[in-house]
């Protein structure tokens, strides 16, 4: 249906204007941004032609001084203010971070949210802020390439990331002013880039082995005519190629005869030497070492003896995921290697041995995730009909609530397809009780103390009743990004309970708002102009969608008065969109049109469901 039929010339936005979307691989070591041009995914390079952006930001007393290659140059000279590998800290607590031991040279301070902040010359910096700097840099690269504002991005996360880690990633994007179309699991992105769904009538099962700098993921997917269905996923969000470097650096330290207490500069130097030795050994049989006036040789067999245990750990996770999917290695038609750390030949050898077949690695393992994300972004932003490409992801770790005695009751089991909703009923145990606390955790262990704490919800406003009389229904909703929301209602009185959320390891809404304001006041970007532009885009989208919806279903689903009211609301929105220079009134008007059209949207969804049940499209009903 041509939208032009229902728009008056000059008043409606051009419906077929191409939108600018990117896929961003926010990596532990390096990050990339890709987009789709002429139907092909391509990675965008900076002015110097460099595609990889080191995930590093350097801070001085003035704040961020540089991001990427320039920042990485300060690695050895100024390790405490050069923040790298922060992906390992995203959504983590101070305790987790301390358990990484000496792997990160930073000084940490706890904030009241329980999330660690890094002490720098610029003051305390949250890992989320560092990630936001990296995202902002990549978005800037894309906006130069497009010569236009970005309409949205798909950002990839390890499939094994828990809710807190996903939320932290999304918060970083919010801070960077990027509209997130979807958080996409890295292995799924890789599968899209390989296009293994194409030209296949038969459904088939593939395994994606993704070993990055700091994370390991294994995903088992079923592909069938454009549908990518994740059957099981597993991994270790604190295991990656960086651990190879640490194992080699530790060996190096012992060879040199250095003690265990190294200063940050010694630590960095050993790590850098270990890393280049590892890279040299991807092609050579041995590498010469020269560090701290010590010369020696490392051979492949020595390196294998240092890293085999780490690789074996990943293989155990592969077996477990196969089991979760109810499959064995013989059912797998393809194995894909993703992540820079799969360049270490030993990894490919051992993976081939486990699955009994040579893995695919013809696409650049560093780029494949960003490329897949770009392809998905192109579909989600609305440039491509998507044909029938659809991604069905799962929740990687079980969600549960803490019960009496510090045990955990699972509400949503791992590897359940998302989005998913579950509800639970609680009652009060004291007369007149008006509040209740719910502690939400994620993990597979039985004791709450062994699982990851996600958030504490305080339910308030329960009507006072005798003990056991109140029935509180708590609904948990996990969306397609793997993010959780909770709502609660007292059933006998039908009172909606107020929920106060305290994320265990994240930023509160207020904190994000403050950081956002700070970042805008420091940056050259004009917050007001940007916010206005965002609201205008949203208003245009809303007007276009609603007019199309009224044209299509207005006769069937609205009475004449409802239709008139909706048209008036749309007209007011259009008027304001053309005249106002303030983003807030526009945002309020958008909100009010959204409210006015809520019932219409619900009826349309209902009609689609009915027609899907009847096995015919709404268009056919219209015609009939």
């Amino acid at each position: 249906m041509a939208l032009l039929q229902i728009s008056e010339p000059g008043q409606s936005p051009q419906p077929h204007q191409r939108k600018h979307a990117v896929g961003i691989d926010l990596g532990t070591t390096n990050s990339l941004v890709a987009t789709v041009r002429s139907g092909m995914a391509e990675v965008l390079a900076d002015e110097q032609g460099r595609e990889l952006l080191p995930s590093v930001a350097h801070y001085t007393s003035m704040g961020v001084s540089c991001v990427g290659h320039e920042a990485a140059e300060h690695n050895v000279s100024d390790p405490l203010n050069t923040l790298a590998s922060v992906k390992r800290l995203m959504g983590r607590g101070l305790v987790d971070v301390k358990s990484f031991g000496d792997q990160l040279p930073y000084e940490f301070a706890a904030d009241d949210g329980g999330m660690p902040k890094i002490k720098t010359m610029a003051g305390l910096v949250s890992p989320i802020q560092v990630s936001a700097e990296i995202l902002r840099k990549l978005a800037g690269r894309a906006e130069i390439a497009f010569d236009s504002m970005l309409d949205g991005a798909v950002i990839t996360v390890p499939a094994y990331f828990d809710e807190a880690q996903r939320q932290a990633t999304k918060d970083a994007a919010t801070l960077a002013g990027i509209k997130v179309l979807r958080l996409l699991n890295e292995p799924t992105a890789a599968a899209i880039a390989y296009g293994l769904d194409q030209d296949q009538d038969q459904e088939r099962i593939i395994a994606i082995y993704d070993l990055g700098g700091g994370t390991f993921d294994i995903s088992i997917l079923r592909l069938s005519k454009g549908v990518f269905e994740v059957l099981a996923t597993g991994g270790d969000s604190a295991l990656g190629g960086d651990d190879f470097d640490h194992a080699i650096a530790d060996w190096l330290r012992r060879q040199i005869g250095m003690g265990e207490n190294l200063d940050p500069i010694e630590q960095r130097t050993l790590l850098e030497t270990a890393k280049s030795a590892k890279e040299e050994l991807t092609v050579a049989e041995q590498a010469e070492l020269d560090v701290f006036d010590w010369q020696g040789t490392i051979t492949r067999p020595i390196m294998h003896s240092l890293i085999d245990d780490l690789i074996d750990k990943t293989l155990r996770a592969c077996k477990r995921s196969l089991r979760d999917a109810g499959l064995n290695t013989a059912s797998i038609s393809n194995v894909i290697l993703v992540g820079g750390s799969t360049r270490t030949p030993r990894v490919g050898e051992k993976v081939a041995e486990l699955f009994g077949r040579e893995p695919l690695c013809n696409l650049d393992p560093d780029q494949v995730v960003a490329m897949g994300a770009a392809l998905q972004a192109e579909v989600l932003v609305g440039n491509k009909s998507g044909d029938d490409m659809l991604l069905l992801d799962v929740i990687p770790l079980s969600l549960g609530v803490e019960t009496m005695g510090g045990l955990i009751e699972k509400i949503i089991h791992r590897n359940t397809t998302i989005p998913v909703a579950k509800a639970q009923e609680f009652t009060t145990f004291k007369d007149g009780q008006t509040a209740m606390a719910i502690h939400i955790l994620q993990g597979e262990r039985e004791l709450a103390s062994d699982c990851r704490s996600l958030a504490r919800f305080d339910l308030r406003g329960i009507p006072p009743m005798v003990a056991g009389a109140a029935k509180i229904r708590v609904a948990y909703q996990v969306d397609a990004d793997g993010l959780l929301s909770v709502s609660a209602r007292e059933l006998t009185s039908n009172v909606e309970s107020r929920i106060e959320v305290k994320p265990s390891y994240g930023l509160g809404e207020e904190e994000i708002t403050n950081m956002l304001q700070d970042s805008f006041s420091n940056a050259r970007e004009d917050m007001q102009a940007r916010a206005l532009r965002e609201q205008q885009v949203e208003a245009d989208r809303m007007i276009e969608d609603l007019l199309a919806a009224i044209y299509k279903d207005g006769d069937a689903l609205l009475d004449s008065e409802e239709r008139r009211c909706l048209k008036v609301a749309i007209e007011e929105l259009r008027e304001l969109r053309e005249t106002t220079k303030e983003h807030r009134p526009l945002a309020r008007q958008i909100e009010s049109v959204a409210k006015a059209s809520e019932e219409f949207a619900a009826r349309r969804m209902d009609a689609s469901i009915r027609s899907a049940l009847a096995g015919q499209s709404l268009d056919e009903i219209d015609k009939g």
Partner: protein
Amino acid sequence: MNLSSDFFEIFAIPATWQVEPGQLDLRYRSLQQEFHPDRYANKGAVEKRLAVQTASLINQAYETLKSPLKRAQYLLQLKQIDASQDSHITSDGTFLMHQIELREELSDVRNNEDPFAALNSLRTGVEASYIEQQSQFQIQYQSQAYDQAYDTVAKMQFSAKLLDEIEQLEVDLEDQ
């Protein structure tokens, strides 16, 4: 909202025990093609929220109909019988005695010379009785002997739980 449709209606199949997995898979994919939130990425907040709810319901329906135990419990739920409680226990004493023996066997596996072989033979036995229980349920449900069907679901719960524990032990053994 038509979200009150029962799961069998959503999948356009009759509300009986017998379910064709291939048909279920196909219908599932075509429903998600239409209602998955990604199909609404460009829409407003209200549409997005509705899509999340609808897709969640489709996922729940699929998960329920795919699993023999959940499908059996759901079929009884449609007859206003709640068979989903963990506390729901069969009154069949012989069956309960046998369960205790099986549990003892499971806890002895670690001491066995070849624990994996012991685990496999235990699993084969439990799987066989699980399938037997499913056929019993089918007959009882069809003949509207819901009390008996309710009792059989309790047995199925035992078997499903035991199979989970066997698998968990296997994971633990492999990790050692």
